[in-house]
């Protein structure tokens, strides 16, 4: 698999999770001859490898797969596409040549430290979980307080439990999945506590992981103290009032030896920042054009490093497109610059991409700020779309057809979500 490590590549992909693998396949499909995927772990597949539950692929394969199965299909497909995958390797820097070529510095135990050049790069580094420090939960610092993803790794990859009596702060999807997983392993899950008045996970996960197992979801509630010297011995929780301020008069203690945190994901853009790539302060991912190209020409982004997705199926679709554009770029094909800026309006937290060009079809991903039902998405004066409901936890997707933009004269397209009168 590594025989052809010498010589320049057309496209290099940073990260071998679902986004990176699909991007590499997209690049090959677009005609790029030599494509390299660089991954930190011993095996490509990313976080999917620890997601042993099913529910992946319903949109993309019309079939219910586990995470490792979904990953395996893409690894196989990548190898069929004669894509090189370099595992146990770390991109420690990317430099730019004056002719636009990219120099990628790769550290691996097999090849040492070496620099390879390529025409275009796809960033697919994924995201990391927010930690206790980010929300500053007061109290002691015992063991037993960990992110839901780390607990998932303990359970599914190492064959160990993070504890026996578990509380979960935050209702992100990994937290919900782990609530069910740990109950199935014989743990007691005392409850999921969510600061917001609504769940931050998919509705289907609330139903299938909590409701079906009788695990209570306490909305508008937060953890106010962590207790225990060596190991977690309990937490205090309290309902929150206006401004998310805990009502300390209603604070009460709960015995548990484990607290999982599922309080959000942050795109891993430290490398993007070191390259001087412009980031969107809301998504914390790069600002991208309609070809998913960042502010640095020839550097593309997709998957959770661009914005946090709900479903891997959507990551795959986005990454195939990013890879195709990166492949075209490497082959010298350039599309005219975007001429329309996309701007989030009422009840729109963000939209990706950040700009559009006339004459092409566009896939738009966006999220609302707060739940609304029923409602209407209003895209400037070119398009309207009615929805029975929107919630922040579920990404909104729609396509803009090329002909919809034909009549559009302006340079800024604003997207609003407005309530529909019943």
């Amino acid at each position, binding site marked *: 698999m590594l025989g052809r490590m010498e010589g320049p590549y057309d496209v290099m992909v940073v990260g071998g999770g679902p986004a990176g693998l699909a991007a590499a396949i997209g690049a090959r499909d677009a005609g790029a001859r030599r494509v390299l995927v660089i991954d*930190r772990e011993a095996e490509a597949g990313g976080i999917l490898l620890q997601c042993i539950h099913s529910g992946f692929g319903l949109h993309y394969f019309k079939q219910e797969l586990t995470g490792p199965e979904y990953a395996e299909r893409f690894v196989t497909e990548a190898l069929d596409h004669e894509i090189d995958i370099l595992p*146990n390797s*770390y991109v*420690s820097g990317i430099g730019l040549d004056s002719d636009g070529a990219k120099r990628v*510095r790769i*550290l*691996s*135990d*097999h*090849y*040492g*430290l070496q620099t390879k050049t390529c025409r275009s790069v796809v960033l697919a580094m994924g995201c*990391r*979980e927010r*930690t*206790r*420090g*980010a929300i*500053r939960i*007061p*109290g*002691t*610092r*015992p*063991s*037993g307080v*960990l*992110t839901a*993803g*780390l607990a998932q*790794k*303990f359970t599914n*990859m*190492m*064959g*160990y*439990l*993070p*504890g*026996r009596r578990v509380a979960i702060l935050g209702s992100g999807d990994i937290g919900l999945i782990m609530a069910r997983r740990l109950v199935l*392993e*014989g743990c007691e899950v005392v409850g999921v506590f969510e600061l917001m008045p609504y769940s931050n996970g998919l509705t289907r996960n609330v139903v299938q992981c909590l409701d079906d197992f009788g695990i209570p979801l306490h909305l508008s509630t937060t953890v106010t103290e962590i207790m225990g*010297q*060596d*190991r977690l011995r309990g937490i205090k929780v309290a309902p929150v009032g206006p401004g998310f301020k805990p009502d300390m008069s209603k604070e009460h203690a709960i015995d548990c030896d484990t607290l999982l945190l599922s309080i959000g994901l942050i795109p891993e853009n*430290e490398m993007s*920042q070191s390259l001087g790539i412009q980031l969107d302060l809301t998504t914390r991912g790069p600002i991208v054009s309609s070809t998913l190209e960042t502010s640095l020409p020839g550097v593309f982004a997709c998957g959770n490093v661009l914005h946090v997705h709900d479903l891997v199926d959507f990551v795959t679709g986005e990454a195939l497109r990013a890879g195709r554009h990166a492949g075209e770029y490497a082959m010298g094909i350039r599309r005219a610059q975007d001429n329309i800026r996309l701007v989030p309006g009422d009840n729109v937290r963000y939209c990706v991409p950040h700009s559009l060009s006339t004459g092409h079809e566009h896939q738009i991903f966006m999220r609302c700020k707060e739940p609304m039902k029923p409602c209407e998405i209003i895209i400037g004066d070119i398009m309207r779309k009615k929805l029975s409901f929107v919630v922040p936890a579920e990404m909104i997707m729609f396509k803009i057809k090329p002909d919809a933009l034909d009549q559009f004269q302006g340079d800024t397209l604003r997207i609003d979500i407005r309530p529909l009168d019943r």
Partner: protein
Amino acid sequence: MGSEIYDVAIVGGGVIGCAIARELSRYDLKVVLLERNAEVGFGTTKTNSGIIHPGHDTPMSTLKGRLVVKGNRMFDQLQKELKFGFERIGAIYWIRDEEDMPRLEALMRLGIEKGVDGLEMWDQSRLSREEPNLSHDLIAALFAPSGGVINPYEFAFALIECAENNGVELRVDSPVTSIDHDAVADGGLLHVHTPGGTVDARYVVNAAGVYADVIAGMVGADDFRIVPRKGEEFMLDKRLHGVVRRLVFPLPTGVTKGTLIIPTYDGTIMVGPTAHDTGDREDVTTSVAGANEIFSYVTKLCPSIHQSDVITAFAGLRAVSSTGDFVIGPTKVKGFINVAGIQSPGLTSAPAIGEYVREILGDEGLRLDEKSDFLAEIAGPPRFAKALPREQEKMVEANPAFGRIVCRCELVTEAEIHDAIDHGARTVDGVKFRCRAGMGRCQGGFCTSRIINILSERLGIPPEAVTKRGGGSWIMTPMSDPSREVAGEGEV
């Protein structure tokens, strides 16, 4: 074990106990250090602000005033020998109001009298040129170039490693439960009891930090009290690297050196500490009030810093003595030496305290014969992230484990984790504080599982026996818990 007689037993493996151990290891002595935690430096040392103070602000009439300037000057040589993270980045002491000018000037005069090197008075324009991100309403600052930052835990690890190389015995997980002593006529031995056995020693040095009065009380030598004073600190994201280049102090008050902005040795900005007395020697809790106190102050001083930049918070306890000064010296119990009340500037004073305690032991009758083969230097841990690309290439070539990044946030390789374990790390925190794995913005989210596996392999213990910091701080439990299974079940 019981038949061996030690010349000196040191109680407490904080930076002070370790400094004393290393100093004594220069001499032909049999020395043991007893530490209650799983590793040295896990108490106050680990949570220290990590500042080497210039020492101009403590009067010469106090013991700390006399030890701090001497201690400060010892660090350059120590760093060469022991390779811990240390840099003299300089410190500034700012004022906002004209009426504080006389106090700032007095501070400068005191410093000059004490022989603190290189003090300068900066006016407003110089200050805003040197530290442009500080609030522009500061009117002047005293600059002390000898102020520095240090990784205090690395200092403790290096001291004990050097001491062990020179024959000192380290016993971890050894809390002292009681001490009794013979009549002087019987040879005057002290018997230090721990759950793992008793240590018989001619001299006992009590460097037990916030527990020093408890240990002293075991022999009735507790004519002082320790009142732990809690300090909460907040580590900020590396995005703020370079926001200030020097240690930023307000004008010190009698109680505290105030809230600081600390550009740590590794480039992370730390803000804090608070200073509140607590009656609880284990109270290292962080609080909402503490965060509010620090950030309402710091954001006014340096508007680029936001509370949302916090990656982790922690608290430590200063061992403040009822005398207000260090309590160092012999006691009414022959052979029992107190080294107590070592609060700020205790870290700066540590090497000077080591020498001072050695002198006291000599005065008390301990025979001090210098070894001819004392090894002053240790190799120090490898630091892949700080190496130049050319050096990195060579490191990977020599050892492929340098090619495997375990901690992506701080760029720590598997080889460095091996090195940390080979030099005494037994816990996840021990690895973290020795090589920074897990110290970055993801706080171990990605690397903890790999570190557990490496510790398990390297120490030859099952993964579930790996702890966060020893004691009951277990991290994982096996899926089938044998204690839950009915006896005999499964045997058909």
